[in-house]
């Protein structure tokens, strides 16, 4: 395979503590190697005057599956005037907040992202998720099956059967080719089947008589007993409601007393996603305010938690979540079209378009909260940048968020342009924060941090020899004076992107569709006849498909990258 040497760039690599020193990065057979290990035939990429980082890792985005596709189906207006015709190396691509699979791959790659995780896979529709993942070029992907409202989990955890829960998780990860244990509005989505919700962690789930508190702690216990690469990944109860920060703190506190057990170097036992939607004060939209400080003060001192921000980008977007009751609440607020699906024994989903307008006070406050979380983070290795794509905005806005985080001037300009800037400033902390994140901290929040949280720090998020050759060169000189807009421009279209040793982007244009892989976790457990019988029984009694038509067989995952865990004892 080809050899490369990326020369003279300003390198930012948190895994080796390199903070902008000039260094050469050598590549051989798809891996990063020591500069001495490549021959004189290695192709030289000149990165002088430019920034070099590892490929970025997306920890939470809704980019593949039935929910995303229903968004595409029912929002043709999202595609209007967005299509780009095919080129020599890329296919026709379009869409804004819910881009086509092709555009998803191309746009992530152009920004220097080389790995992305689909954040909510309904197991029953896992085949659809994998069909879309297969059609998303370049980037490595995995998907998190949802467990927080699953009848098996609810029944096992009600009876405190952790070992059975582990066996079921192991079975479902393999059946759905899933990566991690995702929890969305634990208990609340099941309650939605009765037209109800769980708005605190002690609201009982109808029929099952279990609480979100028991679901979350039970799943953390099972996740650590299995030693999975990622921790439990939670979308908490009471998302998007004024005053919900107390529920957020209650949930985060559930991680206290647990210790991460795994062979992947992961330290957290709970990842709390799109924290922006969970850091709200006030008791109505009239006195709505930021509680980012209260939430981040806790996150900063509690080392076994990681979070991502869910930054609002001030765009017209499409909200979509397995939090069915929340989407109904949203359509009642904005009167825009609503789609809702119940997924049998497993989950549900809702979709509603949403406009985060810079002329609406609540949206302005939401914008501030998302940024405050990142700016208040004491450990950038535990707080990651996301937009919960497409819920708070499309992932294509990451360069703009990086600009806001790296430039107090850019934030000031945005605050001044808001219609209700004085009221917004009163309800938030943003105006008083002068912190400007460094490129090193950005590399922690978008590369090394999420890779470590996912248990993938041995291959992603850094530039140390032995890691995958996922390398990005941005046309940005950290030693020269620059305007805030230069940051956004540089991160929007990388000068050069390499994915596992293959150049995929040159000067912001796609040059190859790469060789994308699907990550999934095979967790081996002791044989468990009871769980196998329960599964057979549920398929016969309740599912609309047979078990034989449920598994994601290997042809759906043509280029797998399997991470194995042995939890037998």
């Amino acid at each position, binding site marked *: 395979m080809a050899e490369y040497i990326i020369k003279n760039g300003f390198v930012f690599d948190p895994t080796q503590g390199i903070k902008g020193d000039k260094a050469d990065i050598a590549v051989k057979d798809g891996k990063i190697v020591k500069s001495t290990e490549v021959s004189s035939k290695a192709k030289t990429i000149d990165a002088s005057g430019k920034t070099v980082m590892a490929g970025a890792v997306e920890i939470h985005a809704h980019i593949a599956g039935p929910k995303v596709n229903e968004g595409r189906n*029912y*929002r*043709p*207006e*999202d595609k*209007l005037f967005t299509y780009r*015709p095919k080129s020599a190396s890329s296919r026709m691509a379009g869409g804004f907040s819910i881009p086509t699979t092709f555009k998803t791959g191309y746009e992530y790659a152009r920004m220097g992202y080389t790995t992305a995780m689909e954040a909510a896979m309904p197991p029953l529709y896992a085949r659809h998720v994998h069909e879309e993942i297969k059609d998303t070029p370049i980037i490595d992907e995995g998907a998190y099956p949802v467990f927080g409202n699953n009848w098996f989990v609810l029944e096992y955890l009600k009876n405190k059967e952790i070992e059975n829960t582990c066996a079921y998780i192991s079975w479902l990860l393999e059946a759905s080719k899933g990566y991690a244990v995702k929890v969305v509005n634990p208990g609340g989505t099941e309650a939605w089947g009765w037209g109800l919700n769980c708005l605190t962690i002690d609201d009982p789930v109808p029929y099952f008589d279990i609480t979100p508190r028991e679901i979350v702690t039970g799943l953390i216990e099972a996740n650590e007993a299995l030693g999975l690469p990622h921790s439990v990944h939670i979308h908490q109860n009471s998302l998007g409601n004024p005053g919900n920060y107390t529920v957020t703190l209650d949930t985060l506190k559930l991680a206290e007393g647990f210790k991460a057990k795994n062979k992947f170097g992961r330290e957290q036992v709970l990842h709390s996603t799109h924290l922006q939607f969970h850091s709200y004060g006030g008791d109505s939209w009239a006195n709505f305010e930021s509680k980012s400080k209260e939430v981040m003060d806790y996150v900063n001192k509690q080392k076994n938690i990681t979070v991502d921000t869910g930054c609002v980008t001030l765009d017209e977007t499409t909200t979509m979540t397995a939090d069915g009751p929340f989407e109904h609440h949203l359509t009642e607020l904005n*009167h*825009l*079209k609503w789609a809702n699906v119940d997924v049998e024994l497993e989950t549900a989903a809702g979709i509603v378009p949403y406009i985060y307008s810079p002329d609406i006070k609540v949206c302005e406050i939401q914008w501030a909260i998302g940024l405050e979380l990142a700016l208040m983070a004491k450990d950038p290795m535990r707080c990651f940048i996301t937009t919960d794509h497409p819920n708070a905005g499309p992932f294509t806005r990451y360069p703009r968020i990086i600009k806001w985080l790296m430039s107090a001037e850019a934030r000031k300009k945005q605050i001044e342009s808001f219609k209700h800037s004085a009221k917004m400033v009163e309800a938030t902390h943003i105006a008083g924060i002068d912190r400007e994140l460094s490129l090193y901290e950005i590399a922690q929040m978008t590369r090394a941090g999420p890779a470590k949280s996912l248990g993938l720090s041995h291959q992603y998020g850094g530039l140390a020899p032995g890691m995958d050759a996922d390398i990005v060169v941005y046309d940005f000189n950290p030693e020269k004076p620059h305007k805030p807009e230069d940051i956004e421009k540089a991160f929007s279209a990388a000068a050069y992107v390499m994915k596992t040793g293959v150049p995929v982007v040159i000067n912001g244009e796609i040059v190859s569709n790469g060789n994308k892989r699907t990550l999934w976790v095979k967790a081996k457990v002791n044989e468990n006849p009871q769980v196998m019988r329960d599964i057979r029984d549920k398929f016969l009694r309740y599912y609309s498909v047979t078990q034989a038509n449920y598994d994601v067989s290997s042809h759906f995952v043509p280029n797998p990258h399997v991470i194995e865990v042995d939890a037998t004892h």
Partner: protein
Amino acid sequence: METVTITMKNQPKLYLEADNISPDKFAGKKASEIAALHAYEGREQTTLGKYFEIAGEGGATAADTRIVVKGDVSRVKYIGMKMSAGEVLVEQSPDMYTGAWMQGGKLIVKGSVDSFAGIGMKGGEFLVEGNAGDYLGAAYRGDWRGMQGGLIRVKGNAGSDIGYFMNGGTIIVHGNSDVHVGTHMEGGRIIVKGNAPSKVGGQMVGGEIFVYGTIDVMMPGFKYVQDEEVEVDGEKALFALYHGDTGERHPKRKGQIVYGKLYLKI
């Protein structure tokens, strides 16, 4: 005002997507530059010059530019799309999406227009001397933001689904319309001077619909309120006012529930 005359000389085999036929795009350009503006025939990108003979040149701005489109344009879509000022005169009958997302200026079609004419229109004046197709002044597929401003006047008949998701502006049809008038309408005014067979104002939240002729089947969600004299298109007349669609949500303004208004001429 400068005039550019474009005359169809080579008919496209497929339909031609010619959204560059607009005063905004022609302004400041010579005939040769206008000929080089792109269009799509099927999936192939081509130029206007391949199909049209172009005479004259654009004015300094869109407002100073007038376009006359001559010849058979029955296979040409998107004439006058997003135009913000100036004038376009089409002598015959163009295909779909004429005047789509128009923002200002004046667009006159001597013949008839096909479907989706004036969709998402924000401003300006759009006159059709013949008939209009379906989805006149409607919203784009999936969108909830239909016509928001401006005036569409059709001297002949219109098809179905006119003013779908209309939010503002005026549509006047001198002849008859087909079914589904002002579905999901939230504002603006639709005037049908002939008949409207059925499904008038379905799921209407606000706005006004006037029908001078007959409605064969009224929607069940409308209730008679009173007779009212209203000035419509420059003349006063007496109408029976109905409120609706009562099956739909309705906002309150100053303590009063706002209904869609359907006026039937007495």
